[in-house]
């Protein structure tokens, strides 16, 4: 990661050397930025970093996930209340969340770049998440004390745990939670807050160049947008300036799975690379160096996309092994997580063309393949299908299925 950081700085320096040559004939780099030690930025002694909205949404999503299998108290209305919270409604146990004007659903599939002019798909995705909740409540809840069977919702043993699945073998809380990593966290980060359309919106550049801060705030608008991207990964970290300290423990969403991917020897260092890119990009905004900023955004887009793709393959392959070992409970759990990560692929970002690595129809095809080896969805899925999807995902990246699977 150090090499990458260094390359970026050199490239930036080089670029500015050239342009300053033209101006003055001397190679003095302007706006040179280096990667700060941590994510700490101040103006007149006051921190300019703020991402409380992201912290709030992560906390809302955590409460929603833990309420999914609370069979005694949760209802479709209570889960929907957590998903599409309205300010002042008594949806959460945490009063601060109830008082918040934020909610999860309005930011699901809601990035400027992907969905700003694609309300149709945005609505479709939001409805898909609504559907996960209603399926869970209407299909799985009534059968909570029934043994699951092909076509019959109920519970199934996964080791010593009980998993609650639909008739198709899907655990809706896993599908929802892992899908949200793409549709909320990655989409907002990669396709909204790191987007030039958002960072440079209106007078943001001029304001940032001239230190014009948002009214009553210590930050410029552009600084804040960047921080909001950061917040979808590190918004729940114990130490916001050095979030790698508790990486993996801060939340059950992108933070946790970045930690998991970083723990695979084939991808070790990816967490530091992403963190460094966030720091350098933010420092570049402070220095009004937008080229370096956008290079860092590109690194984050590529790496976060890889995290999702690696995890999708990882779970498809673990599910395959479990099926071969006839451990269906374990397989359904893994494949439900895999299903959510596959769904999340739609929100990845390919720097080559600025669009997703996987189109809507490619993702829909994968999902359809997972559920259509037979009448009963995952009950009938074959190792061949799981390998085919895994290979198709890996083919868009420079890693192999085997590297992602361990």
């Amino acid at each position: 990661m150090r090499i990458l950081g260094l390359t970026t700085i050199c490239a930036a320096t080089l670029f500015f050397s050239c342009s300053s040559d033209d101006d003055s004939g001397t190679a003095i780099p302007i706006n040179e930025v280096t990667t700060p030690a941590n994510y700490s930025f101040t103006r007149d002694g006051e921190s300019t970093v703020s991402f409380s909205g992201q912290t709030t949404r992560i906390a809302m999503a955590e409460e929603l996930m833990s309420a999914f299998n609370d069979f005694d108290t949760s209802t479709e209305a209570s889960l929907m209340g957590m998903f599409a919270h309205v300010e002042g409604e008594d949806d959460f146990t945490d009063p601060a969340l109830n008082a918040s004007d934020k909610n999860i659903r309005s930011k699901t599939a809601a990035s400027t770049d992907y969905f700003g002019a694609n309300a149709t798909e945005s609505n479709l995705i939001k409805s898909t998440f609504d559907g996960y909740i209603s399926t869970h409540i209407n299909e799985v809840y009534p059968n909570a004390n029934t043994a699951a069977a092909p076509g019959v919702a109920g519970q199934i043993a996964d080791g010593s745990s009980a998993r609650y699945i639909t008739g198709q073998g899907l655990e809706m809380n896993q599908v929802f939670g892992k899908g949200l990593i793409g549709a909320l966290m990655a989409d907002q980060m990669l396709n909204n807050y790191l987007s030039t359309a958002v960072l440079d919106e209106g007078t943001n550049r001029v304001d940032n160049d001239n230190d014009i801060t948002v009214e009553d705030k210590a930050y410029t608008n552009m600084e804040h947008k960047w921080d909001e991207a950061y917040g979808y990964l590190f918004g729940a970290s114990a130490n916001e300036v050095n979030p790698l300290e508790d990486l993996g423990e801060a939340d059950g969403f992108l933070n946790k799975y970045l930690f998991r991917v970083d723990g695979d020897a084939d991808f070790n260092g990816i967490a530091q690379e992403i963190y460094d890119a966030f720091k350098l990009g933010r420092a570049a905004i402070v220095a009004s160096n937008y080229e370096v900023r956008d290079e860092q955004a590109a690194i984050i887009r590529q790496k976060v996309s890889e995290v999702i793709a690696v995890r999708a393959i990882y779970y498809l392959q673990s599910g395959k092994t479990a099926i071969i070992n006839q451990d269906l409970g374990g397989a359904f759990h893994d494949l439900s997580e895999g299903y959510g990560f596959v769904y999340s692929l739609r929100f990845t970002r390919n720097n080559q063309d600025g669009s997703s690595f996987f189109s809507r129809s490619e993702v829909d095809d994968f999902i359809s393949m997972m559920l259509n080896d037979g009448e009963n969805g995952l009950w009938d899925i074959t190792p061949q299908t799981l390998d085919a999807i895994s290979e198709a995902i890996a083919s868009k990246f420079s890693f192999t299925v085997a590297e992602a699977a361990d």
Partner: protein
Amino acid sequence: MKKIIFVLASVAIIVACSSDDSVTPDDSADTFDRKAMLINWADEIIIPRYEFFDIAVNKLAADADIFTDEVTLEHLNDLRNSWQLAYTAFQNVSMFEIGAAESSRFRDRLNSYPTNTDEILSNITEGNVDLSLPSTNDAQGFPALDYLLFGVAENDTAILEFYTSHPNAAANKNYVTSLVQSMHMLSEAVLTDWQNQYRDEFVNNDGSSASSSVDKLTNDFIFYYEKSLRAGKIGIPAGVFSNEPLPENVEGRYSKIYSQQLAVSALRAARHFFEGRSFISGKDELGYDDYLNYLNSTKNGDILSALISAQFGSSKAAIDDLDDNLYDQVQNDNNAMLLAYDALQRNVILLKVDMLQALSIDVDYIDADGD
């Protein structure tokens, strides 16, 4: 102590015998008679142990009937004794989670602890609980009976009242009956399967692939040793896997006095299986130790099988030093628990790493993802 030395000596003799008898085997061609070992396992160890367990569970069921017919202190104490005997016999078979035991989730259903007392009480109120559902694991089996026979009230008089004058007395008795019936059914199902067809399927699957009987049962055995014996009985209560010790997580928490003895029984059963010791005659027959000796397996110049047997001995000595009630042991001197854990852990290395490598068996389980 004398016993340990004796066992060590006999292992040493066997080592000598088997290496005298056999030509030093070529590493690449493992021609050890796996089938003979499987036959010894099935006919001399596994099936006899299940038969013994089944007798104990039958006695438990009979005493439960007597108790629920007529609730007296004498009948309660008889039932408690049967429970303790059956729980001890269970330690002999818990490691064989293969065949019908695996498909019926035998160990999870019979011995998930700490038991969930809230769930037990709500199951009693709701009635007609399906004990085959995995969500009911921690409200059934020996730990649930431990609570219902020893811990459901302050003293014996109050416990008896739970089954007599309590407003739910009938349902309370019914729950004991359904727990015991379900345990009985599990025991019968696994034993019958072994007796009827699984025995032949097991001994004939004598290859060395991942799905062969030796590879599978070896994994089950080491998984059991690592998770249920080392961690469940000692490590978890001692706080090895948590920030604080968890004394309330000992096996037999409510009966209070059996937790150490259950651990000793489990360790002995594991050691005897390792050594291939017949449950019928007590003789040391074909087991892992012979297989390792046949392969001339050593570690740092020492005979591997002897190292493992010696470590079983050290573990036994460390557990013998503990209080009868491991709850008290954790509270009063947790360091002794940690020493016992360390002794058990040393054999995880020898079994899971060194033995599996020597036998060319791959570990087929990984630590759960945790989500």
